[in-house]
């Protein structure tokens, strides 16, 4: 099965800083260490493999990390730690669709397609079918700011599916379209599946998930609670939601708080230690390091760069002194 793994992620984590005010953000960017800013771990170690031709559903309550996972797979945001192997081109469709309001629908199609790396010839060859799929009629020459939210999402979806992705990620984007357009999208998704492409489907609609997905990932507070056949996972999720609804107001609140605290108090170092232990063997340390940090750009500046950033101004000052006093550089060394 190894040959057709499309997406393989292991030990994915994502950390966000919880700034209290805007000025904290600016402070954070001048100070090199930030110990006092509270942290929040949107993902606390997520691992899974997905094969070609699969449709994967992502379910979970708000803030459980569904969108974070889909954004990381799409390449929009980098993970804090973890290994990410993606075999093919990804395209994400989200609400809002990232259209430019001042431009017309047609101009948006062009600009968006250019931004995904298509050439003008390629765009010319797909543009008619994008227009047809979006079903906007005369509105295609109107600025997008005049569109309804359904029209925007139709256009966004039409552009995205025509960029020929290998992996399509749909982040709650179908929830705004009407019944006819929804059916059209479903048909397109099914035809993609038949072609052996992989689909990630983020939704709160259990019926849509059940209809489209083979397997389902249930995200819960930044971790995978369950990953398996759609029917089984959805059943467990529904049971959980029902259990939660039946709790009293106070119990609900304290449950949520305790869960959120898990995400605030998560320590990456202890997670790293536990993974190292799990791997075992003599090379465990390097293996764990590879998985966690090798491919990720560290947020902190490397010490070599820090030294350079300190040395270069000094050198510049020295040179400036020489230049202003009219001394020649070569004379100084003689």
């Amino acid at each position, binding site marked *: 099965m190894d040959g057709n793994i499309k997406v393989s992620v292991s030990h994915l984590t994502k950390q966000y800083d919880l700034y209290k005010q805007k000025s904290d953000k*600016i402070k954070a960017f001048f100070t090199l260490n930030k110990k006092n800013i509270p942290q929040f771990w949107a993902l606390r170690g997520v691992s899974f493999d997905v094969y070609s031709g699969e449709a994967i559903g992502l379910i979970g309550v708000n803030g459980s990390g569904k969108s974070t996972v889909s954004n990381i797979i*799409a390449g929009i945001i980098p993970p804090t730690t973890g290994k990410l192997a993606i075999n093919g081109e990804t395209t994400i469709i989200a609400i809002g669709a*990232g259209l430019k309001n001042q431009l017309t629908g047609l101009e948006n199609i062009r*600009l968006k397609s250019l*931004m995904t790396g298509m050439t003008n010839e390629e765009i010319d060859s797909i543009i008619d079918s994008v227009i047809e799929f979006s079903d906007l009629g005369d509105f295609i020459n109107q600025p997008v700011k005049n569109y309804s939210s359904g029209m925007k999402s139709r256009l966004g979806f039409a552009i995205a599916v025509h960029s020929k992705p290998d992996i399509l990620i749909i982040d709650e984007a179908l929830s705004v379209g009407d019944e006819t357009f929804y059916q059209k999208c479903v048909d397109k998704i099914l035809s993609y599946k038949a072609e052996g492409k992989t689909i990630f489907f983020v939704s709160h609609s259990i019926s849509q998930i059940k209809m489209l997905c083979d397997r389902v990932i249930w995200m819960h507070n930044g971790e995978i609670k369950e990953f398996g056949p759609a029917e089984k996972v959805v059943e467990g999720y529904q049971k959980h939601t029902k259990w939660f609804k039946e709790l009293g107001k106070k119990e609900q609140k304290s449950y949520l708080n305790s869960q959120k605290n898990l995400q605030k108090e998560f320590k990456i170092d202890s997670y790293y230690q536990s993974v190292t232990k799990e791997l075992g063997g003599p090379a465990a340390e390097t293996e764990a390091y590879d998985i966690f940090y090798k491919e990720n750009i560290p947020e902190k500046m490397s010490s070599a760069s820090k030294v350079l950033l300190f040395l270069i101004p000094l050198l510049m000052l020295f040179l400036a002194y020489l230049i202003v006093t009219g001394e020649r550089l070569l004379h100084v060394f003689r």
Partner: protein
Amino acid sequence: MKKVFIILKDLFAHFGIVFRISKYEDRATYQSHYLGVLWQILNPLIQIGIYYVVFGLATNRGGIGGVSYMAWMLPGISVWFCINNSTLGSSNSIHQKIGMVSKMKFPVSILPAVSIMSQMTTFAVMMGISIVWLLVSEIYPTFYWLQFIYYFICLVVLLYFCGILNATLTVLVRDYHIALQSLMRILFYFSGAVWNITGQGFPPFVNRAMMLNPFLYIIEGFRDALLSRGYFFEKGSVTLFFWLFVLFVAILGSHLHLKFRSKFVDFV
């Protein structure tokens, strides 16, 4: 240092996209104008006319350094237009498009390059006009003209890394862009574009201090090349200072850009 290479790799890997988007945007910007892209040339020419009247006819009738004022000004001002428009354009580039790119897979670090790229047509035409003017005024090519390539590289590299840094800072702090606009207006007079700043009778050490301005280094460099005045390696320490400045901006800019890239949307 590693991050500088990541940024450069992004740029070279997506150079086709940079080229196509800048071409598309140029067309889109001037689409509704009768004179179209011609404005990209007309605008600077009108400004040159004014500067000629104010600085050429009023104060520098005798020319500067043995050439007529126009021949002296044209190469400098052509470079300045490129510097000014690219710096301000690239500074705003990420902020302008953030809504669009935040929901798709797109190398944000190439956006400043798109702004710089769209200034290159104007730059080429303005330089063409300058060179024709020089030839008409009987200033002919020499070996010094080869330095044009060197100074062009200086120009592009400086603009690109300043663009990365400025664009990142503009997203984080909106005030930065306005401050930058004011700074550019001041630098216009201190970079020797229309006004021969080092020939105004200031004390020599002030003149030498002016040479530290990287924009002046480039503008005077283009003049050194086209007016056959000297080689860049003859001013070794200033050249070294310039490249150290570029390196500093590159390291700082790449670091901040990569650090905040995924969070840009939260800042708007």
